[in-house]
């Protein structure tokens, strides 16, 4: 089955990105396809490559990037939400791309199931 994922919050402040990541990983392990992970609202902060968590803490930016590399997951950051919050190509982590909100709606249309993680 094709899943579409929406992430509304950045890393650390809320658990949303953690839950979304673990759900995405579990879906891939079960052989499902992740059509797209769309980052909206403060969710765009998941794509900030300057993020440097403590050594014994999880590193969500790197975890998402690794998922994109290993499983060709499409990680899309909303351009409007990102501009406001200062997430631009200069600091965009590998595997993420910046695009329009239409990519979220398209995900809702194409995916068999669309699910939101937020606060």
């Amino acid at each position, binding site marked *: 089955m094709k899943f579409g994922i*929406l992430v*509304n919050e950045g890393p650390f402040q809320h658990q949303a990105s953690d839950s979304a990541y673990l759900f995405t990983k579990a879906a891939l392990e079960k052989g499902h396809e992740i059509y797209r992970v769309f980052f*909206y*609202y403060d969710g765009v902060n998941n794509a900030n490559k300057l993020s440097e968590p403590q050594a014994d803490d999880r590193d969500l930016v790197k975890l998402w990037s690794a998922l994109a590399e290993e499983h060709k997951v499409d990680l899309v950051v909303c351009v*409007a*939400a990102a501009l406001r919050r200062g997430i631009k190509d200069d600091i965009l982590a590998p595997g993420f791309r910046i695009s*329009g*909100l*239409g990519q*979220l*709606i*398209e995900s*809702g*249309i*194409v995916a068999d199931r*669309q699910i*939101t993680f*937020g606060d």
Partner: protein
Amino acid sequence: MEEEWDEDGPEVVKRFMYVNRKAPYGTVYALEMLEKVLIAAAFEQDVHVVFMDDGVYQLKKEQETKGINMKNFSPTFRALEGYDVEKLYVEKESLEARGLTVDDLVVPVEVLSSQDLKALMDKQEVILTA
């Protein structure tokens, strides 16, 4: 309207529901949700917008935001009709708990009881919340 989509729309038309439960200005969810609704309309999907809990306050008339230095986005709700977003629903119980009536709101809406809202939600194919 449904016929029009069958003729001119994309191949797939899904029932999208946007559930607004947050008050305006205290958080950005209301504003950026509205941007999502407008985009969905451009994709000619079957858009349903629900206001319940504090989300009903998004539609309150007479918002004057100058004093908090933020943009008053409530007029945008009146523009939704121009984008063929006409299915706006407000939960009756949420409105009543706040002592509000439809006369307090910036746009015409259909008032649904929780019971009727249940049935409408259950038919949706994509539900976006914030």
